[in-house]
């Protein structure tokens, strides 16, 4: 049984900044039918995330790791008959979780802050030379002075300000 006296009725306002109006969701499960990650274990059921948000089930949602299974294919977004934008809901739940529990913050944000990339593009020199390419690609990896400015931009964001210990120079 859900005790509605203990829920956060305003939860949806905290989470779904730029999504479609999730109050239109009537749990038809179209977002589940086309979802690869609905085969995960535990499965990702976006309709359940939407119910948790609308009912204000804060604790349950903060324990829920299924939004992180999303493949990002956006099939749900295409199929949803109510314009709820289920993929945006997945990302919005991830952001809300990351704001409320820093252990949800993905390590890749610190990698991008540090190098501009999620892959070591400047440390595969032999591999790149072997196929006839310049050893360091002409991305930010090749322009250290741009990396400084890039970090200066990110330093002004809430994510970096509130979690500065995660972000190395």
């Amino acid at each position, binding site marked *: 049984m859900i005790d509605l006296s203990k829920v956060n009725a305003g939860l949806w306002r905290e989470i779904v900044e730029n999504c479609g109006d999730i109050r239109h969701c009537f749990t038809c499960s179209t977002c589940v039918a086309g979802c690869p990650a609905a085969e995960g274990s535990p499965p990702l059921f976006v309709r359940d995330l939407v119910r948790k948000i609308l009912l204000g089930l804060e604790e349950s949602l903060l324990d829920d790791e299924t939004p992180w299974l999303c493949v990002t294919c956006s099939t749900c977004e295409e199929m949803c008959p109510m314009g709820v934008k289920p993929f945006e809901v997945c990302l919005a739940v991830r952001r809300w979780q990351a704001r409320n529990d820093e252990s949800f913050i993905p390590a890749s*944000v610190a990698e991008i802050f540090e190098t501009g990339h999620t892959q070591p593009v400047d440390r595969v020199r032999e591999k790149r030379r072997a*196929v006839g*390419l310049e050893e360091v690609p002409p991305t*930010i990896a090749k322009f250290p002075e*741009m990396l400084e400015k890039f970090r*200066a931009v990110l330093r002004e964001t809430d994510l970096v300000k509130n979690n500065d210990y995660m972000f190395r120079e």
Partner: protein
Amino acid sequence: MKYGLFLGCNVPAVRPDVERAIRLSMPRLGAEMLDLEGSVCCPAFGSFPSADETASLAVSAWNFSIAEELGVPMVTQCGSCYSSLRMALEKLHENGVLREKVQGLLREKAGREFCGTASVRHIIDVLHNDIGIDRIRASIDRPVTGMSAVVQYPCHTLFPSEVVGFEESSGRPRMLRGLVEALGIEVRPYSRELQCCGGAGGFVKGSFAGASEFAFRKLRAVRAETDADLIVVSCITCLEHLDRMQAELAKKDPSFVPLPVFDYNQLLAVCMGFDPAEVASISTIPREAVVERIRGAGR
């Protein structure tokens, strides 16, 4: 025709032979690929878009500002980069508050301008709709004969069609098929043709067994229903994932015979006569036999 080649992270680091294939094959078709100097991660959906929306859009706008300075459309092979950039551009156009915030950050902290004139294209779209089938057909000495393929449409170029689409119908894409047929290779339909590869996002990392079974079903269908000699993709994730998952499946089930996987531009570059050691040298499932058939028999 001039474009800005958006490299992202996986292509230049993990499969630089794809980068080489794009850099060699596109100019042969009259498409000059300029470098987007100083570009960064798109950002990947699992990074900033999953943590902080303003930071995420600032990273995207950083990339847009580089392309805007050159005045060229951005072109990417990676499906995730394509979708992330398209969705970010849409948000920046729609949400004036976020746009102004991001513009201010870039201007004050980096001296960069995001104006909103950037455009983002997937390489299939450019090949099919800017360059065209006829020009591609004319760019190879002789068509390949006696070979067949299955194609993998990148999910990120299909959905949501309103934001990312360039096919006439997202439920019936056909452009990659046309591009492969232009090389003389027949394309076989099969029941799971439109199932995505499942390799993007957090599915593989978070639920390896589920993600493997999802891919295995697709791969078994290719084998059971077609006589394809190869799989053709146009996305770095499809390329890596279908390659890796076939090796996994062959380990579990020795009766499964894996197929080589090619990025379209790799196949095109091989057909154009470029050195396979440069344009198609990195893979798990060996590709040499198919490369030799393309270069040798009937040519």
